[in-house]
């Protein structure tokens, strides 16, 4: 099979199963260079707002727009204003004054069509600048330059003074007055000028010292209008309302003088060459901040909350002043719903990408879009020692088919004709903008292996005076970080496979009686319209209980023919042809069959499930072509190959005898399914599972199959025939209609000095260097970790190239090449400054997930806590200026790390009280989760919805989120919490009946089922809520399982378990956690 041959190996490129190199047939009439990456042509965008939102209709049956619903998401349509151009400059030139105090983030109007990808123009700084907190001065943090890096202080609160630390944070905004720098700069260059978040524990800070804004920033804008706050991130993080501080009260030069005690080493920017480049926002550093001080603004009404640290060991170390941490001042994510423009490179320097969760538009000018690939640090340490000193992970998150922002330029397709793409003859790296042409263009040096290649004659071009090829800007492969090459015959071992979709439906008694079968049939039936058109789309269907039932779709007669394979220990296919047929030929009979299946099995009394045998049978049907196997499973596989036992019960009894081996239940029960999955992958069969169940199904065991074949698990527990069909349908629909590829092989190459250590994600690996992906889609992310095998020169660049060879749904074989070139540094401070919080956290998350099956939960929690502590410790030890041991000093870029770490420790996967399946599902979900969804998964978004009517400003659709703390929940409130998977609506026990009436159509929710179908009633609140939910659905590419949580019953407890900042029986509160972290660091320091 194809997979056995490593296509990217250093040998000659080996063909993969694929299609002929012929013209780019896919994009209509696309010439050599065409667009991809957008499921819907941009022309669709304007119309999108008019379309029914994909999620708006809870029942799939009712919403079947002509367009695939999901497909309409990427196009931006959402933000009709198209403000990018005007807004950006505005933001740069003059930070906008935020609206008056009561202004909430104003949701962009009419943004329904865009899911997840925020519009380019979006919202603009106006929305971002909104301070929800009443009384906050309007001037606060208004400026949000598009070009500025996200690293800035997120608290939106103007630091008033800096207590003791005198840390590097005090940075003159204009590049640092030399007077402050000299004394220290020389001696502690590495420490200087780091953006830092400091939490003084030992005394209430009286003022916050802020670091100067990055120098570049200061050059580009008038200082007056650009408070340091201007570095506020544009990430779409909700801003806690209470953090608003008036920037105006904070004079720029002030902080240094006020906050920086002369005794502390002055923060000095390391004099980096690029510092002088005005156009390098990537290097901009967030101004260091101090936290924990009471807001200096008169409008701030929240009193300082006494820190809950009375018994903290830290208290002992406090010398004089009582420790006070204002919970409102500790780092929390800030909201941002506006769109920024991100240029991947400027002035031949890599820019630091905005946070993954923020709304940005990428301009690819050399480096790839961070959506496709981003690194845990935006500078590469020159040596492995430096990396280990930092304690930070060096890893890459690759989401090779990630959806672009609708406003982005599509990825261009390059066809080199029969000769195929230019590659380095030694390492087989693909031509990219970082290959250096020398000798008048006759030769080029590979940026990955350093080998000097001869330029093929056909490809020769003169060099210009700048040393670049004259045609560099015309050739996408020389000026774009991401391009797609048309694969030639060499890259195929067979013709590209057709798009084959095989549906497998559980019809055992439980599945039928719970409505899961009917839901699956209905979902499939409706989704047929969303399958790719054309003769290459083939479908097949089978059902199973204790036997497997195939259906002959090739028959002309009306009555379907059911072929039963009863041998579930040794399965086979019952027909040679007609099991899988062209969709166009069988659409009618298939629809009729799907309609019939629930009736046929209406009285099925077979409770057994031969799941393993069924997927094997499905595989056998797909074996000749490969394809997608979509399994709808409802009960624990109980018979036939791959049958499983109910280990959960076993686990329960074992609990009494000690919990030591509990994690074993999170490992696959045996190797059968793993072996099967390997075989599936070999024949390019990708398995997706939709688990619609009421009971334990041993996801730990069965998720191996999707995990190995590039598929995914969807989990509906407990399945509700009332509320879940909508999600099932939307999930299926997105699954089959999202941008995706088949029979893929991926390989990451990097410059000499680094080497790939490991890949992790949903794939099958047969040889060390490549991973096989029977299916790859826009939602799948693969983590790649690196290790040093050599040193880099300071100031050199490290190139990373990911090549994905795959077949499109239209049967074209492509190679997507994604390039990233990052500067190398030997300065630890640079590493911290360029650290990418989101990516690092995603990395931790995935590490934790991989540990869960092999370690006890307490070990995993300890491990991730230690990861966090070690990083902060490294920073404290090597980068932060010496200050009172009573201060917790956080690197600015990573200041949310403790919060996320805490949230992770309390997440479903790491909680002690979770069900086995919930935990296994969480593990399986996390394994392929994109960065942009990783953070919401552990630190969900909570928004109040009881005061929706109060909003008149419609600019921002989503109200600002509030911290996940029970303090922010009032009994008369109604809240929506979402983590990308579930949406919980919490209703306080004193909620306004009128509001309930408006939202739910009943004055009291007592009678409502907890599995909610959100209806839209004819009132503004209901409309607004529906709009909000739909917006979230779009953002997350997920339909959300809505659940109703009432205070005082288990559902309310469930909701409260998401309040990660609270103290729980098994976990610390956020403040306590910070204290804990601080104490640990102190211990280490001592």
């Amino acid at each position: 099979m194809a997979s056995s041959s490593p296509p990217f190996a250093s040998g000659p490129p080996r063909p993969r199963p694929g299609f002929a190199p012929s013209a780019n047939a896919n994009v209509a009439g696309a010439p050599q260079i065409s667009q991809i990456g957008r499921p819907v042509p941009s022309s669709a965008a304007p119309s999108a707002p008019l379309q029914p939102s994909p999620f708006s209709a809870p029942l799939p049956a009712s919403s079947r727009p002509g367009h695939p619903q999901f497909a309409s998401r990427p196009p931006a349509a959402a933000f009709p204003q198209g403000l990018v151009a005007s807004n950006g400059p505005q933001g740069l030139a003059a930070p906008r004054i935020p609206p008056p105090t009561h202004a909430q983030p104003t949701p962009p109007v009419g943004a329904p069509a865009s899911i997840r990808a925020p519009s380019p123009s979006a919202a603009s700084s106006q929305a971002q600048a909104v301070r929800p907190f009443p009384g906050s001065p309007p001037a606060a943090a208004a400026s949000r330059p598009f070009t500025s890096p996200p690293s800035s202080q997120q608290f939106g609160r103007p630091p008033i003074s800096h207590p003791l630390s005198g840390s590097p944070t005090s940075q003159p905004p204009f590049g640092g007055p030399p007077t402050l720098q000299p004394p220290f700069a020389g001696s502690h260059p590495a420490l200087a000028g780091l953006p830092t978040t400091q939490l003084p524990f030992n005394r209430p800070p009286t003022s916050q010292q802020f670091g100067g804004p990055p120098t570049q920033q200061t050059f580009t804008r008038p200082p007056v209008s650009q408070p340091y706050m201007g570095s506020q991130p544009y990430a779409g993080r909700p801003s806690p309302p209470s953090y608003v501080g008036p920037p105006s009260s904070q004079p720029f030069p002030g902080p240094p003088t006020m906050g920086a005690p002369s005794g502390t080493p002055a923060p000095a920017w390391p004099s980096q060459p690029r510092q002088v480049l005005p156009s390098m926002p990537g290097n901009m550093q967030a101004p260091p901040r101090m936290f924990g001080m009471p807001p200096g603004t008169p409008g701030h009404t929240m009193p300082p909350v006494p820190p809950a640290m009375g018994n903290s060991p830290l208290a002992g170390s406090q010398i004089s002043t009582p420790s006070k941490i204002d919970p409102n001042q500790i780092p929390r994510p800030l909201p941002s719903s506006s769109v920024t423009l991100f240029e991947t490179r400027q002035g031949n320097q890599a820019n630091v990408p905005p946070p993954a969760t923020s709304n940005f538009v990428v301009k690819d000018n050399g480096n790839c879009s961070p959506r496709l690939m981003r690194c845990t640090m935006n500078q590469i340490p020159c040596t492995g020692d430096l990396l280990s000193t930092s304690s930070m992970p060096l890893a890459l998150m690759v989401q090779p088919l990630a959806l672009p922002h609708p406003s982005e330029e599509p990825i261009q397709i390059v066809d080199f004709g029969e000769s195929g793409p230019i590659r380095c003859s030694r390492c087989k790296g693909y031509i990219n903008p970082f290959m250096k042409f020398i000798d008048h263009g006759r030769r080029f040096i590979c940026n990955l292996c350093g080998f000097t290649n001869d330029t093929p004659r056909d490809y020769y071009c003169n060099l210009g005076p700048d040393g670049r090829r004259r045609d560099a800007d015309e050739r996408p492969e020389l000026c774009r970080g991401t391009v797609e090459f048309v694969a030639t015959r060499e890259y195929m071992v067979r013709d590209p496979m057709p798009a084959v979709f095989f549906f497998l439906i559980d019809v055992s008694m439980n599945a039928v009686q719970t409505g899961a079968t009917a839901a699956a049939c209905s979902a499939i039936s409706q989704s047929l319209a969303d399958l790719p058109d054309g003769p290459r789309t083939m479908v097949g269907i089978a059902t199973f209980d204790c036997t497997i039932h195939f259906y002959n779709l090739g028959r002309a007669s009306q009555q379907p023919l059911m072929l039963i394979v009863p041998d579930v220990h040794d399965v086979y296919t019952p027909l040679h042809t007609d099991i899988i047929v062209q969709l166009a030929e069988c659409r009618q009979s298939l629809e009729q069959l799907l309609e019939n299946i629930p009736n046929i099995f209406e009285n099925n009394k077979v409770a057994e499930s031969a799941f393993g045998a069924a997927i094997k049978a499905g595989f056998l049907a797909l074996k000749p072509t490969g394809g997608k196997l979509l399994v709808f499973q409802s009960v624990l596989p109980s018979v036939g190959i791959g049958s499983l036992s109910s280990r959960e019960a076993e686990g329960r009894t074992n609990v009494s005898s000690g919990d030591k081996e509990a994690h074993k239940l999170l490992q696959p029960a045996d190797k059968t399914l793993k072996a099967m999955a390997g075989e599936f992958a070999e024949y390019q069969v990708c398995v997706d599972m939709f688990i619609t169940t009421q009971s334990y199904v041993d996801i730990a065991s069965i998720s191996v199959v999707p995990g190995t074949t590039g598929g995914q698990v969807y989990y509906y527990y407990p399945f509700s025939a009332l509320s879940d069909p909508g999600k099932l349908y939307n999930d299926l629909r997105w699954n089959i209609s999202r941008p995706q590829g088949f029979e893929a092989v991926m390989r990451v190459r990097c410059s000499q000095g680094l080497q790939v250590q490991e890949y992790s994600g949903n794939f099958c690996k047969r040889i060390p260097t490549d991973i096989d992906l029977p299916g790859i889609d826009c939602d799948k992310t693969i983590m790649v970790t690196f290790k040093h095998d050599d040193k880099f020169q300071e100031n050199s660049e490290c190139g990373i190239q990911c090549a994905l060879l795959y077949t499109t749904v239209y049967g074209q074989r492509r190679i997507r090449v994604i390039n990233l070139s990052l500067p190398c540094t030997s300065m630890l401070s640079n590493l911290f400054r360029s650290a990418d919080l989101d990516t690092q956290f995603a990395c931790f998350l995935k590490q934790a997930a991989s540990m869960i099956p092999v370690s006890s939960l307490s070990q995993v929690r300890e491990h991730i806590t230690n990861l966090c502590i070690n990083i902060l410790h490294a920073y404290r030890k090597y980068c932060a200026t010496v200050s009172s041991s009573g201060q917790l000093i956080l690197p600015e870029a990573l200041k949310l790390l403790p919060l996320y770490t805490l949230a992770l420790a309390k997440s479903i996967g790491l909680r002690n009280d979770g069900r086995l399946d919930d935990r296994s599902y969480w593990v399986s979900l996390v394994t392929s989760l994109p960065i942009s969804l990783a953070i919401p998964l552990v630190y969900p978004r909570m928004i109040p919805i009881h005061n929706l009517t109060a909003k008149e400003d419609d600019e921002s659709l989503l109200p600002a989120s509030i911290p996940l703390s029970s303090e922010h929940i009032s009994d008369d409130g109604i809240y929506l919490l979402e983590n990308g998977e579930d949406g919980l609506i919490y209703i306080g026990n004193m909620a306004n009946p009128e509001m309930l009436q408006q939202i739910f159509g009943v004055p009291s929710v007592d009678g409502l089922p907890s599995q909610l179908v959100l209806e839209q009633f004819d009132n503004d609140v209901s409309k607004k809520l529906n709009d909000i939910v739909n917006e979230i659905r779009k953002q997350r590419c997920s339909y959300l399982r809505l659940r109703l949580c009432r205070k005082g019953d288990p559902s309310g407890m469930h909701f409260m378990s998401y309040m990660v900042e609270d103290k729980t029986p098994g976990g610390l509160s956020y403040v306590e956690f910070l204290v804990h972290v601080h104490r640990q660091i102190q211990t280490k320091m001592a």
Partner: protein
Amino acid sequence: MAEELVGTGGAASDPDGPDGVRMSWNNWPRSKVEASKCVIPVAASIAPIRTSPSILVLPYQPLRCKPPCSAVLNPFARVDFAAKIWICPLCFSRNHFPPHYAGISEANVPGELYPQCTTIEYAPPPLDHHSAQSSAPPPPPVFLFVIDTCLIEEELGFLKSAMRRAIGLLPDNALVGLVTFGTQVHLYELGFADVSKIYVFRGIKEISKDHILDQLGLSASSVRHGAAVGMPGYPKAPLTNGFHPSGSIHRFLLPAADCEYALSSLLDELQTDQWPVEAGSRALRCTGIALSVAAGLLGACVPGTGARIIALVGGPCTQGPGMIVSKDLSEPVRSHKDLDKDAAPHFHKAVKFYENLAKQLVSQGHVLDLFASALDQVGVAEMKVSVERTGGLVVLAESFGHPVFKDSFKRIFENGEQSLGLSFNGTLDINCSKDIRIEGIIGPCTSLEKKGTLCADIVIGQGNTTSWKMCGLDRTTFLTVFFEIVPSERSNQSGIPNPQLYIQFLTNYQGPEGQMRLRVTTITRRWVDGSNAEELIEGFDQETAAVVLARYVSLKMEMEEEFDATRWLDRSLIRLCSRFGDYRKDDPASFTLNSNFSILPQFMFNLRRSQFVQVFNNSPDETAYFRMLLNRESITNSVVMIQPSLLSYSFNSPPVPALLDVASISSDRILLLDAYFSVVIFHGMTIAQWRNMGYQNQPEHQAFAQLLQAPQDDAQVIIRDRFPVPRLVICDQHGSQARFLLAKLNPSATYNSAHEVVPGSDVIFTDDVSLQVFCEHLRRLVVQS
């Protein structure tokens, strides 16, 4: 020849007598030594349920002798009317009549004591504990069709039309099931209303019955899970007291009236096997698995009630158990030569498989019928055991379009005159006087291994028992029982030896309408002093003897390696003639034989040349087929197989029997040969010319037309009564088809003697000896000292 014809057509229109029993020896030598000197085994051909209008049916339970004899009261019993006592003629036990026989007297005897009622039937009301349900209808017949789909379109078309006709003929209450097979086995769930539901089994893997049941949801465990009872989609089946199989019955076996439409539409849509056949390969066909599945299904649904698996097979089994040849076309199907040299790699495995299948079927009481229609072999030789042990029918034809298949197939389902009277679940018990032991039975039955004092040490065929199972039997089923004479010391010494011996045959069976019957046949024969050849000769039945020998030699050929049948037959004949012929030593000319023996040499001559002994002209399949029919046919028909009958038609004379000799060929005659498997109408050259010129159509040649028509009519008479339907060959002298006749004729004129041939006559191109030469040699050898 003449005698035989007289025998069949004349006085004894029923040569088998009212009891349907014919014996090689009707007077039995009393000693073992004498018996062995008789050469021809003491054997009886019996027809367990031959229809006969005169049979009395008694509606009550039979009266039985005390165990272990358990013989049924019969006309040979001595009855003391006064004491109300009867003495069993077999064991001489005295039995009291039960109270309900109180009214018995010389003037009022029950039917079973009528002297002419040596054969009688009991039809007792069903023993029913639930008297309320005593009127429960008898179980319906069950037909499970197993259809080969690895056929060319044309053959499949023929097959479908045959099936359609059969479905039309099925009684409404008959339960019908359908299995098709090719590369895989398809079992149709006819009772599933919403869609056509088919269970698919792979053809390469042998699966046990339990597995099959599990997989069909018919096993006890799955029934417990409710799989069988609550299966969706079919109309609510009436559940009888939660009786286990009732639910499953209606999934796969449906009354013909209910599923006729479904069956027809399934047949309409039935396609040839879709799995690809590689070039240079045979189609993959899993006959073995298909039959396993069918047997398993019947075993689960209708155990113990009469059911037939009707297998329609169009080629060799090439995969899975029961495979007879690999799919590779370069490997030919095994021949007799291969079998002799043990060069048939699959043969023994396949036979073993079919033996096990037979065991399963017998234990369930089900029948396997085999309709093989192909130009090449399909594995009848291997499947023979399954068919024969279960009492199944077998038909071998060249094509599903051939009348041999079409008409035979139709006969199964026909009622009335043409009915075969197919019955089920027969059990034969034999009881006999002391000094007699039973060696075994050759014929369509299975030993039930019920050992007893009556079992002989020597076993012939199905032995070691006094009880046999016949899952399927019909009114033309015949069995050959072999006896051993073992005089006990006491009987020799006793002064008044009982001159008569008695044998009682008890046959329990389920009639065509499902009714349970017990047929009792009691026969008596005479003991004679073995030293008196006269008495023995008087009781000799040479036709039966010839057939018994033919069956016996066929069996030996199958069972014994290196068995030289011809030599064995020759020696037996010589010994027999030495023992019973009149001659002077060393004077061949003096040799004469009693008329009771007179045609035996001719039978032997033809038997030596027959397909039963000379197997190398036939495929193993054909041989197996011939022998199966030989073993189950009546003596009369079996004699025709050994020595065909020949009728001659000519102007100015009625049809006359002709010598089975090439000399009977004449240009102005029409010959009608009945060789059982084929019926040949042979037109002499002149006749053929006239016919070709159309004289028969001219009014002035009415006589010629009649002459042409007469043999046709007679052939139809033969064909009509025979199952399987013989192949009708109409040929002309010197035509290619004439070989069907010539092969059977005594080669009195060969190319060696061509110069002596009368014009218009014919010669046979052979080196075989003629009857005359054979007899000369026989005479010479017999009289040698």
